[in-house]
């Protein structure tokens, strides 16, 4: 039981850090540009497909991962300059609709190129097998690698935003757009960069998660909605909030699915009630946070 529990906690962490990779871009784009981007899930999908295609072509998983970030970032720059840029001043309704339209275009476009059948990425032999953790627990090495990548990206992002000139400009962009424009920062280049950064992270997440699940059209949207739950819990615009929210959601979802059916089995002699409840658990968590702190755990007053 303890082993199982530790395994589930690790799974929860792994889901959490992957959610962070997706939420980070979403929350940055919202914080800096004030844009709600539904097509973020499409960038996740683009990354996954690019990884699957390039890995199959070159035979190298690493090349696939690099391709996922590049492809998603390029797609990000493309839609930012063609469409998204026109939406910054618009109200949220227009942003939602235009980016919803982008989802339709991306999904169908991908279906046209790759077909409706799922693709699979195989884990390279070097990191494929299980590893024995201290205490004797066997755990897939690849999932540990995912956790490490997620944490590394989080640290990198933290350093980028707090320690570099670019990061300071991003922070300033969140605080006062007109002012940094007036101070001579090329705001439109900054916006494109932030968008591409978020897109690249989403693409990376798509490739990594696509490796343990599958790569298919429509994979991005459920993840996108979960990422919304994450940033509502964490507070829109806050990277730290996204990190804490992502871990909370990842752990709640995984542990809920593991523990609740067992609990209701004992209490009401029915595991079904538990599995129904656990499917709703992260939304209930979001509702609780909304009641206590409508602007999220780390959100300012908006």
């Amino acid at each position: 039981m303890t082993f199982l529990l530790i395994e589930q906690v690790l799974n929860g962490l792994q889901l959490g850090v992957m959610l962070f990779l997706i939420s980070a871009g979403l929350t940055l784009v919202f914080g800096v540009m004030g844009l709600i981007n539904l097509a973020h899930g499409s960038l996740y999908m683009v990354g996954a497909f690019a990884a699957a295609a390039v890995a199959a072509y070159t035979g190298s998983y690493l090349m696939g991962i690099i391709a996922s970030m590049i492809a998603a970032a390029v797609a990000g720059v493309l839609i930012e300059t063609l469409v998204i840029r026109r939406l910054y001043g618009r109200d949220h309704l227009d942003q939602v609709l235009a980016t919803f339209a982008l989802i339709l275009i991306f999904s169908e476009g991908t279906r046209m190129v790759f077909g409706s059948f799922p693709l699979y990425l195989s884990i390279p032999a070097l990191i494929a097998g299980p590893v024995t953790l201290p205490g004797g627990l066997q755990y897939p090495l690849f999932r540990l690698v995912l956790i490490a990548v997620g944490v590394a990206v989080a640290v990198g992002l933290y350093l980028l935003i707090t320690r570099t000139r670019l990061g300071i400009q991003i922070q300033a962009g969140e605080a006062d757009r007109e002012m940094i424009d007036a101070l001579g920062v090329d705001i439109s280049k900054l916006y494109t960069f932030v968008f591409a950064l978020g897109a690249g992270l989403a693409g990376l997440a798509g490739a990594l998660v696509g490796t343990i699940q599958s790569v298919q059209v429509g994979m991005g949207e459920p993840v996108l909605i979960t990422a919304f739950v994450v940033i509502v819990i964490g507070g829109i615009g806050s990277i730290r909030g996204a990190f804490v929210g992502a871990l909370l959601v990842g752990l709640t979802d995984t542990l809920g699915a593991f523990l609740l059916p067992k609990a209701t089995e004992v209490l009401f002699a029915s595991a079904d009630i538990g599995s129904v409840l656990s499917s709703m658990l992260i939304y209930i968590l979001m509702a609780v946070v909304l009641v206590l702190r409508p602007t999220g755990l780390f959100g300012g007053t908006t």
Partner: protein
Amino acid sequence: MIPERLFNWGLLAALLAFVIYAQAADETYWITLSTRAVIFAIAGIGLNLALGYGGMVSFGHAAFFGIGGYAMGILASHAQGYTPIVDGWVTVNGTQNMLVIWVVALLAGGFGALLIGLLSLRTTGAYFIMITLAFGQMFYYFAISWPAYGGEDGVIIYIRNGFPGLNTMDPVQFFALTFGVLTLVLGLMHMINRSAFGLALNAVRQTPERVETVGIHTLRLKLTAFVISGMVTALAGALFADLNKYVSPAMFSWSISGEIMIFVILGGVARLLGPLVGAVVFVFLEEVLGGLSEFWHIYLGLLLLLVVLFAKGGIVGLLTRKEVRHG
């Protein structure tokens, strides 16, 4: 350029004429398509009250659409299986009477909207959009993991539910019924827009602070509108399930929320018949483009993108001259 009122009457007449022609030409499929458009329009009219008049951009109306669908599915499946829904101190039986199903759908949809509204209306703007989207998804997962009514497979109803005095299995009679419901809902919306409640709602969208200062409880006002909006969309859900004789978790999916929003936007936000125009255009595109290419959603996406970027008043806005209250 024609006045919007004339356009509205003309559109309703044209739809009726089309169905009468289809009946005369024995084109049952066209009648079914028209029924589909009318039901979508009712769902859109529901959303239009929240989104267009109330300024509450809900991306979770599939929740109410699905609740309506499942109200029908649950009641009718128990009726056709002769099993009671509740069998304890009281016995509650299913029914295949549409009137009862509609009442249950309206109540359930209203209750769902009350819960979601109470939580979501604590926030505005982007938060509100994300939260309604998330709660919609919650209902989707709930329906999938709930094994009692088919889980992922949903529920099939063998015979369409009955309405006193009508043979609902006859496509044209079922169309007439949904068209009747549409007319009632349109009448209700027209009354709401003209009423003090509607005017206040409109004012809340534009300047909430001012309305608050006058002494109107804005949250209660918005919540009321949201609940009515959810009820109307739930009614459409019950009709849609009856049209297909089938209900499944797909009715709760986020893309349905997006499509209901498309009906409103394509037609024109905060215009009485906007959702009907949008739904008719949507069903037409689905049929024509869907026949031409398996990937018709890509064209729908491009069209939507063009409407959002360049045609703010939607189709009704392009065709009629009056700039209606929206701003």
